């Protein structure tokens, strides 16, 4: 059994899990690495390439972790979306 779950049902994907926690920790780190590594790489500094490369690797890891879950959430939600839109129009109406 892998550390991160790859197969989700829409109902399971609704819950907050360790995949979400890992993602929200990794994601800002990737941004920081792109920012710092990108600037240093543009100045041909060796550290910059290492930091930027790590950022790209982490990004691939993050996509692999969270994308299956996002797909499951989307699938579950899209089936209900049409009904939700009709309900929304009724709910937000100021007067009948």
């Amino acid at each position, binding site marked *: 059994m892998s550390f991160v779950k790859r197969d989700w049902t829409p109902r399971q994907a609704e819950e907050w899990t360790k995949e*979400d926690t890992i993602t929200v920790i990794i994601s*800002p780190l990737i941004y920081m690495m792109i*920012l710092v590594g990108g600037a240093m790489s*543009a*100045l041909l500094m060796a550290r910059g390439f290492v930091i930027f490369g790590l950022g790209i690797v982490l990004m691939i890891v993050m996509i692999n972790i969270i994308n299956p879950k996002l797909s499951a959430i989307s699938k579950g*939600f899209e089936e209900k979306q049409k009904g939700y839109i009709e309900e*929304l129009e009724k709910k937000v109406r*100021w007067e009948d």
Partner: protein
Amino acid sequence: MVVFSFLDWFWLVAFVVLMVGSGVRFYRLGKRSESDFFLAGRGLPWWLPASSVYATHTATDTPMWVSGVVYRFGLSGLWYTFYAAWCAISAFVSAKIFRRSLAYTQAEWQSLRFGGMSGELLRGWVAGWQVFINMFVLGWVGIAMGKVCMFMFGWPLWIGLIVFSSACAIYVLAAGYWGVVMADFQQGIIAFIMILIVSFWGIHSAGGAGHVVERLHEMGQAGKLNPFNFTGFFGGDFPAAWFLTMLFIGILGGLGMGTAIDWFPEAQRIQSARTVKDASWCIWAGSALVIFRNAVWAAAILAFFVMYPDLHEVRDYEMAWFRLGFENLPSGMLGFFFAAIVAIHISTISTHLNLGAVYITRDLYHHYMNPKARQEQLVWVGRIGTGILLLGSFIFGSIMENITEWLIFALWIMAAGIWLPGILQVIWWRFNGWGYLSAWVSNLVFSWLVVWVLPAFGVLPELKDYHQFWLLMLLGALVFIPVTFLTKPEDMNKLVRFYVMSRPIGWWGPVRREAVRQGLIEEV
């Protein structure tokens, strides 16, 4: 002053026609309905709104601002631009929640989250505030274009302010958000390519990247290459405490909605994505591109610093990136460069024209004035709203020199006292509409007092911006937390409906249990 050759004018005219034409082409799609005019029918793949996020947040004043902080602080100055990091968490938290609510705007979301009078007051307030802010931003960005045109051609300010915004309005009026997002896509590509060309050309002109690094060491400015070059924990121009505050605000702000001013245009892009997954990736990828762009700019500004190390006036060094382009690109490329500046400019203008108009149409006209309006009427109101915003931006832009300080203050209001309530409304079921409304009102009062009034009377010293943030957050909490507990919770049935549809994270236990009891969701 810059002199254009025939080839330069050719590039400029060709690109403006291409940009306006590509927007107008979507006229038929844009006029179909309110949903098409403002959300492209909620059918876009992630990369289209992502390119729009990137293009929108690359405005005429952005390179000036990045130039200013990087010239002054070196790579550390990049952290001033890192506020975009709120998208790092928002993409996987609040973007999902907002997309699932199906609200057109943040104002509409307020009335889905909060019920009764407080929900309606919040919807009206947020809508009015956003109309004002969008008009203000249009004026601000417009006058920045006026300054660029004055710098380049010696034109009076009003020409740059009016001409390009008006050209942009053609496709926003015709095709609404369809025009905005389609034009943004190609404007984003043009701008990105030109940012790379100008920046690396500039670095090359300074002797190459290796020479720039070497010169910085020789000049005793090696600290400018260190992104963590703080002046102490609390002291100096660039304290670590400021950096940590910025990280705190930026990153944790992604848990909430409306915690950054950029949330509002992003919300429109989130809602225009075809699925929840597309919504998440669109703001993540768009912001990642913004951050990468800032990194490239920073390297180019350091090259400029090596060439011109003795500029002391902000107005001189904030033009660094523009000067790299105009002073170093060969004739024939200048028109291409200016076309990219126009692309940068009108991608931001188009977004704010359409964004302000959606609040006028959806939240003010459709909600309060004519709930039974036909789709055709709503599209026309959207166009009229776009026209009002355009004209208002000219007025704001023409007086902007005197009120820049006011704008900064207005933007500050968005960040400080509203930051925590913006998160609480998403993660805590007990936080109610009266609590959020009291946060807005008290923040208006406290921010005036803390930023201007009390320092003017010597009651309070002039605080640094990050000190102001913490103080305003604390003062606001002293109001909105008691107000929340002294007023009734939101109606449970409303909360249950909201919870089932949006599935927010955080402290929603009682609402979740009620939803399970009603059989609307199942325990996993």
